[in-house]
């Protein structure tokens, strides 16, 4: 299975029926493809959409209806438009059930860094600081390492996005959960040996002798 699709499918399992969910750019965006539409999940975007649906067919797009990346989207029945202050009111006010975001680094404490690489690239935090601070649940969805460099580290060396501990980290190799006592390895990807995960991870992972495999139905 494509690593990105594996991650998206595993994250999709975390989504509760009728919840309000914000998906970041990149892998997180793929998550909506693996949800049953009957679950009544509403997707929010920072730019002021509540109830986003897929990109409409060519010829049916409208420049007034886009996601936070500026891509054309549609609205599901019952969708609504809000302004930017209202949008971040939902986010910071604790009305957003879940945000799924990418990361540059995550560390043993569950701290996230995803908005600048000093001296190299400074995209800016956009809505990420508010999302991580305000959402009820934060899931990091990302590839386990970048160009051979560990992204799950002892302590973030890049500027933090928030003091808040993220709730779950999902990669193509593993599912990890930061807790008070450190970072727990709770699932392995199908057919990935424990040793491979430990080798690919700079952070210290807490784990039992038998780490279960992800259950990706279908």
């Amino acid at each position, binding site marked *: 299975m494509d690593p990105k699709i594996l991650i998206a499918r595993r994250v999709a399992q975390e989504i509760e029926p*009728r919840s*309000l969910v914000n998906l970041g750019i990149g892998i997180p965006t793929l998550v909506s493809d693996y949800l049953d539409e009957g679950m*009544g999940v*509403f997707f*929010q975007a920072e730019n002021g959409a*509540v*109830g986003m649906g897929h990109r409409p067919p060519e010829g049916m797009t409208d420049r007034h209806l886009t996601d936070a990346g500026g891509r054309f989207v549609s*609205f599901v*029945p*019952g*969708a*609504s*438009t*809000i302004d930017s*202050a209202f949008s*971040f*009111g*939902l*986010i*910071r*006010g*604790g*009305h957003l059930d879940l945000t799924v975001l990418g990361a540059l680094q995550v560390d043993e404490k569950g701290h996230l860094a995803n908005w600048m690489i000093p001296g190299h690239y400074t995209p800016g935090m956009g809505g990420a600081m508010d999302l991580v601070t*305000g959402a009820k649940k934060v899931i990091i969805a990302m590839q386990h390492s970048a160009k051979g460099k560990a992204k799950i580290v002892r302590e973030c060396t890049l500027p933090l996005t928030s003091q808040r501990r993220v709730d779950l980290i999902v990669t193509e190799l593993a599912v990890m959960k930061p807790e008070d006592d450190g970072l727990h390895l709770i699932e392995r990807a199908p057919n990935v040996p424990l040793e491979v995960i430990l080798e690919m991870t700079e952070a210290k992972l807490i784990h039992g002798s038998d780490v279960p495999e992800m259950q990706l139905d279908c």
Partner: protein
Amino acid sequence: MHLAISIDEAVGLIPDGATVMLSGFMGVGVPDGIVHALADAGKKNLTLISNDTARDTTGPGPLFAAHCVRKLICSHMGLNTIVQAQFASGELEVELVPQGTLVERIRAAGVGLGGILTPTGVGTKVAEGKEIVEVDGKSFLLEKPLTADFALIAARSCDYVGNLAYMLTATNFNPIMALAGKTVICEPEEIVPVGMIPPDLVKTPGVLVDHVIKTSA
């Protein structure tokens, strides 16, 4: 999707002693059905957050007539004789809040801010006991967020996602209280099928609304 509940079910959710935000302005934009039902049910020791107390029999009036309210947080209570009598006798504890501060404190709770910094009330009785924060040489009152166990609101239209549309000056505190109640209960004038309220007309997205009262079948 939000299931519509009956007014009796709504009343059953609200225990004695609850803190309740009630929308409306001088009796306009108030969920009158649930107000009367709470009064009839004889709820006790409520803390009521409402812009005003309207008149004896309008807006939140019935709640005072039925002695449901122990503490009132509002901006104006001058035209309700029952409230004035209960305040004078000491039955009713009152916190008066300037109207712009009241709505902004409610909004702050709803949008996750730590409070507001307002020039309103500086140098007056309202400032007593409150922190003053200086910003660039100007003084502002730090007023704290105001939340509630329940927000009871009214709307013109509602769909089964809980999306709300309001009408004219019946809008007032409704969209703000919808942000701030831990449980938000709406009594709309009509419930329409999902999709009937255009996205740009929705003033309160249904994700904020917990229960919708259906008054008829």
